[in-house]
């Protein structure tokens, strides 16, 4: 029989591994979401660069497919997720509020041009990524701050090719970040 100190150590080991499993599951889910959004954002930025006239349609499609993809992840594979079933509805509400606030800032309070829009939405999205990272793991913080810094660099220093820059920085960054999360 073991003593209470050894029993406490065993329970601490259990707690530690449970936390690691939960974080691993969260990273797996976040990785899928990041890669999915990354592919969409990459494509929409390319459309914006090559055929600016169709940019608005491309970005509406990204938003619909992006949020739809996340909800589909919940609907088709809910058992492997670390959180409860209510997260699907909350996820939808989070995105509804997210887009409503973004629209208010860019179209009502201010009147942003294409370059400002192309900068605001990624850094706004990455702000939430970074904040989430303070609770859920350093990978979110690294991806959020990294993409924000490169986006701002592009805003100030990249000229006509800004949408192409953003295709690689935002789209490519999310894809690489998502793949990196799977390896952590």
């Amino acid at each position, binding site marked *: *029989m*073991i*003593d*209470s100190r050894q*029993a*406490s150590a*065993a*329970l601490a*080991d*259990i707690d530690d*591994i*449970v936390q*690691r*499993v*939960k974080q*691993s*599951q969260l990273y797996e889910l976040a990785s899928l979401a990041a890669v999915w959004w990354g592919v969409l954002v990459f494509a929409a930025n390319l459309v914006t660069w090559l055929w600016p006239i169709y940019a608005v349609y491309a970005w509406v499609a990204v938003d619909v497919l992006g949020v739809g993809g996340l909800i589909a992840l919940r609907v088709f594979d809910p*058992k*492997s997720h670390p959180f409860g079933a209510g997260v699907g509805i909350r996820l939808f509400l989070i995105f509804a509020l997210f887009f409503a606030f973004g629209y208010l800032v860019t179209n009502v309070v201010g009147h942003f041009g294409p370059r400002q829009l192309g900068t605001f939405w990624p850094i706004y999205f990455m702000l939430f990524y970074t904040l989430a990272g303070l609770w859920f793991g350093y990978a979110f913080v690294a991806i959020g701050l990294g993409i924000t810094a490169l986006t701002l660099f592009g805003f100030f220093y990249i000229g006509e090719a800004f949408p192409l820059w953003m295709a690689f920085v935002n789209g490519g960054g999310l894809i690489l970040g998502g793949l990196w999360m799977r390896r952590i």
Partner: protein
Amino acid sequence: MAELDDIIHQPLRLKIMAALNALPATAGLEFSRLKKLTGATDGNLGAHIETLAKAGYVSVEKAFVGKKPQTTVTATAAGRGAFARHVATLQEIIAGKQG
């Protein structure tokens, strides 16, 4: 008075069972992910999974994903029950009812 489960009590097997028990009932973990989570070597992890499987605490499923073999380990109902009893015993020891 409850006894500690000798099979689960070994440190690596305790980690394996804790990791599997943290998942929903029918979900399992791939061998490579379990290896990363527990920090064990291939051989050591394989041997301890075999011990748990022989006791009926885990089920092991081998499949091919493309050309790569993939081993998935899942806690059985018996394994989950044994793990819950083991944890309860540890808590009793800490509370001073045993040990």
